[in-house]
Structures are given as C-alpha cells and as structure tokens.
C-alpha cells in the first residue's frame, strides 16, 4: 500500500527507498517550500523525494536527518515503513510489558 507516510520509490537507477518525509513535514506544519529552503533544494525535489521518484544523496539524507533531529532509519528505509504512530505505540507497549 502506498500511503503518503510510506512512499516507495522505484526510480531511474532501479533502487527503491521508502520514506516518512511527508508525515514529518505535516507534523511540523512545514510546507514543501519551507522544507526546500531549509535544505537548500528546489521545492519540487521535496515532492519527488516524498513521492519516491528520486532517491536523495547520502549528504542530503544526513541534512534531512539533522533537520528533523531523527535518525536516518526513522525517515528512510529500504523496506516498507510502518505508520509512525504504530511504530511509536508498539514500542511503548513493549516498554510497559
């Protein structure tokens, strides 16, 4: 399933990358333009990354990670990502048990 929170890319180089960029952006009330300016990229590139049409470079992935203060694996994954809420609450439940 392709929801905005779990995008899968299959771009020109054949590799695939899933990401939670649109959810993180929505949580922080950031527009594509805001995020693009913070990262120093074109706002359309943000859309292409979110949609999975473009895999960002390692350098850009680090910048995104630093901007959201999250580890890279919380934002990008080579396997499909679970919804963020599910990931957080299942972790909390495990902690209580």
């Amino acid at each position: 399933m392709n929801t905005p929170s779990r995008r899968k890319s299959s771009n020109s180089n054949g590799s695939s990358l899933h990401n939670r960029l649109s959810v993180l952006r929505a949580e922080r009330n950031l527009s594509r333009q805001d995020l693009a300016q913070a990262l120093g990229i074109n706002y359309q590139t943000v859309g292409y990354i979110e949609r999975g049409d473009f895999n960002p470079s390692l350098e850009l992935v680090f910048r995104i990670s630093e901007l959201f203060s999250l580890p890279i694996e919380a934002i990008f994954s080579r396997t499909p990502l679970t919804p963020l809420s599910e990931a957080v609450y299942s972790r909390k439940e495990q902690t209580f048990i």
Partner: protein
Amino acid sequence: MSNAAVTRPSWGEWPRAKRRQLVLATYASFSALTAALWWQVNQIPGLEWWLVPWIGLFALTSIAGLFAMRVVTQHVGEADDAVLDERQRFVRDSAHRSAYYTVCILFTLAIIFSPKALVVLPSAILLFNTLPSAIIAWKEPEPA
C-alpha cells in the same frame, strides 16, 4: 547551500500533457520554419513573396516556444551547477545526454542524405561516438 532555483516562480508546475503539447507545437513551428526557409533558399519561382510572412510567423512562434519551454522547465536545462540541486543536476545531465545522441543521429542522417558532405561521414561517426568518452578521459581526476 544557496539555490536560486528555489526562489523562482513556480511556472514549472505545468502538467506533463501540457508541457508535451508545448514541445510538439514548438517543434512543429520549427519544422515549418525550416521547410519554409529551404523552399525560399531553393527559390521556387513565384513563391517567395507569400513565404516571407510565414517565415516571420514561424520564426516568432519558434522563438516564443523556445522561451516558454525554458520558463516552464525553470531553466534547468541550461543552468550552472551552483543554482541547481542534486535532482535538477541529474535531470539536466540526463537531458543533455539524450540531446547529444539525438543531435548525433540527426547530423548523421543529414550527412548521409547530403552527397557533398558524405566525405566527412566516417570522421563524424568517429567524433560522435568518442566525444563523451574523450571528455571523461580528459576531466576525470587521478584514480584513487
């Protein structure tokens, strides 16, 4: 990183179908201009007078189409590295590669169908096929 493309107006948000219509219209106009000029140069008697306004019209629409394509693509095709982000650089480089081979094929066909220029065909084919590798060989830094 400063990025001039970020602050440009979002004219590039044309849907793909509309952009393709613009490309087709521009090249149709460009083809008509080429045909009209060819006709004019070959001086078919009695046709020159009515061809002139058409040449002007096709020239204007070709220039307008060229300008519109550049605006719609936010000038990515001809911009320097400094004003582009990594995806735009990838798109530009990929477009230039496709453009290079398209031009090579068109030039080769033009040479083949022009008997006078046929003598340069082997050199042209050699140049077209070796130029990208030659540039890479020239520019690549020392191996690590």
